């Protein structure tokens, strides 16, 4: 066993898991509080990456890119909530699926029209482009930064949800919507803020991944489905659930991508194992969700008080 490789892969899994958490945390809140299925949540991820890329290209500063990107996505999220989502909270899930499917098409094409088809590379400052050595272990600096940022946001959300009045309303809203309404809270504003914060989280995830994979059209469409899996596995409305489920799924995906072909090669010819392994590791995530739904439909960590 190559321990350095294992640790590297665990770190990679952690990084993916935290990215999924950033996406899923907003999704799960919007889902839990507004009972709104937002398939186009991945579009915020994409838009965030493009905003950040544009500002980095103009100013040359990655930090400014992130800051302005966050503000930009917050505004886009608020606009979507204001003009579209708000009208749909009382309709059924089918309508949500259709409208947000339409939004995906709209966002993808708008990005194509504005930024072109070629995608956008986001240069990193030299400090971040290097590696960090710990003993014999060498890890990319930037990936460590993603992990740190992910954990930071998780801590921020933890404080927000457990220690503030907004968080109290969010928690109450996730488990009992009528109660929040009975408290005389301006529900519209609460929903708007939660929606826009959720969008910003997704946007942040997009900004963090773009320097690695580039910003591109439709980059959110694949990962959003995995983020949904995270939400369901974690328990709808539960930020804590999204955190743990994100890590579990990030690790499963990365570890099976790294070791599954070797494992499969023990029983089937290597050339088949090479093709089957990536597909099966992608499938694992869905198998996990189906098992969770079949045996524990409320998810692994449902919010307290939810049925």
């Amino acid at each position, binding site marked *: 066993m190559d321990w350095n490789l294992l640790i590297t892969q665990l770190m990679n899994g952690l990084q993916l898991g935290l990215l999924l958490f950033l996406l899923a945390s907003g999704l799960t809140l919007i889902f839990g509080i507004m009972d709104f299925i937002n398939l186009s949540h991945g579009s915020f991820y994409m838009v965030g990456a493009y905003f950040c890329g544009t500002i980095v290209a103009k100013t040359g500063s990655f930090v400014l890119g992130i800051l302005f990107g966050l503000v930009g996505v917050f505004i886009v999220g608020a606009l979507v909530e204001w003009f579209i989502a708000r009208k749909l909270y009382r309709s059924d899930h089918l309508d949500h699926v259709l409208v947000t499917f339409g939004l995906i*098409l709209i966002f993808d094409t708008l990005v194509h029209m504005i930024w072109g088809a070629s995608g956008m590379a986001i240069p990193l400052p030299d400090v971040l482009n290097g590696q960090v050595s710990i003993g014999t272990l060498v890890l990319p600096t930037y990936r460590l930064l993603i992990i740190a940022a992910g954990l930071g946001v998780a801590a921020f959300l933890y404080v927000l949800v457990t220690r503030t009045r907004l968080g109290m309303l969010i928690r109450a809203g996730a488990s009992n919507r009528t109660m929040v309404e009975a408290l005389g809270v301006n529900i519209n504003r609460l929903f708007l803020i939660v929606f826009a914060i959720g969008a910003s989280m997704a946007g942040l995830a997009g900004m963090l991944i773009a320097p690695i994979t580039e910003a591109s059209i439709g980059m959110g469409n694949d990962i959003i489905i995995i983020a949904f899996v995270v939400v369901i596995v974690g328990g709808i409305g539960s930020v804590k659930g999204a955190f743990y489920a994100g890590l579990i799924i990030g690790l499963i995906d990365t570890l099976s991508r790294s070791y599954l072909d070797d494992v499969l090669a023990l029983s089937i010819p290597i050339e088949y194992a090479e093709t089957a392994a990536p597909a*099966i590791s992608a499938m694992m995530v869905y198998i996990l969700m189906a098992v969770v*739904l079949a045996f524990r439909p409320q998810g692994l960590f449902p919010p307290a008080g939810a049925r």
Partner: protein
Amino acid sequence: MQLLSTRRGLFYTALLVFLAIAPWVFQWIDQPFYLDLLSRALILGIAAVSLNLILGYGGMVSLGHAAYIGIGAYCVGIPAYYDFYSGWLHIGLALSVSAVFALITGAICLRTKGVYFIMITMAFSQMVYYTFLSLEEYGADDGLVIYLRSEFPTWLSMDGAFSLYYWILGVLLLSLYFVHRLIHARFGRVIVGAKFNELRLQSLGVNTYRYRLTCYVISAMICSLAGVLLGNFTSFISPEMMGWTRSGELIFMVIMGGVSTVLGPLLGTISFVLLEEWLAAITVYWHLIFGVLLVVLVLYGKGGLDGLLGLMDRGKKSS
């Protein structure tokens, strides 16, 4: 029955008559490609009719129905790969494989409700998608080219654009009629009733789970027939045809045409395929128009195209 007494009825009658003579019309105006388009639309129509059975009438929003198109298509492709071309074999295989798969997954899916049902149906279809993606022997990502169509006795042959078209039309009309009968029979009443109020049905002594599961399986089997025809029509199959976005498009077609109406889904698929073709010819940004259409349709256009036809009749009455 009242086909000729309302404008909507007239429209559908005209549509059906047109479908019956379409190949000759297209030959006459020398546009053989239109027959291709229509064939594709009608195949998707079969899938939409099957989806409408569970989604429209039964209230089961499946985001994984494209998997059954894929299963049907691979039930043609894989035997053909081994030089088994018998059409009865293909159809029999498609019906049984889809039934077994729907029975197993449906039994799990139907334990859940609402959004969980949407997500778990999608999860299962993604599993099928990735399964075929991993089957190196059958082309994996690259898909399979089917060199010969399913073989049937001469009078039923699928060879040639015309005979394949009439096969498609035949299967479509049969499934439409079957769904129509089903919905008004004892079984259908339970399915429709359970959509609106499952608890009520249970209080009436009906074990809704068993009926819904049966309905899910029937729908999957009809959909697999669409897959068999699609495999024969495109002579090429790939896992792409069962990705979750394809399932989303199917829902879109059903809603666009008019959910839980008999002919609405067919209207939806025909419009969808034509729109896709025309818009794509105008601009590479055609997805934008599609997206806006979808949003507007849901926010303001309840009842879909079939509903619009209905409005026409109401307009007539009030004038």
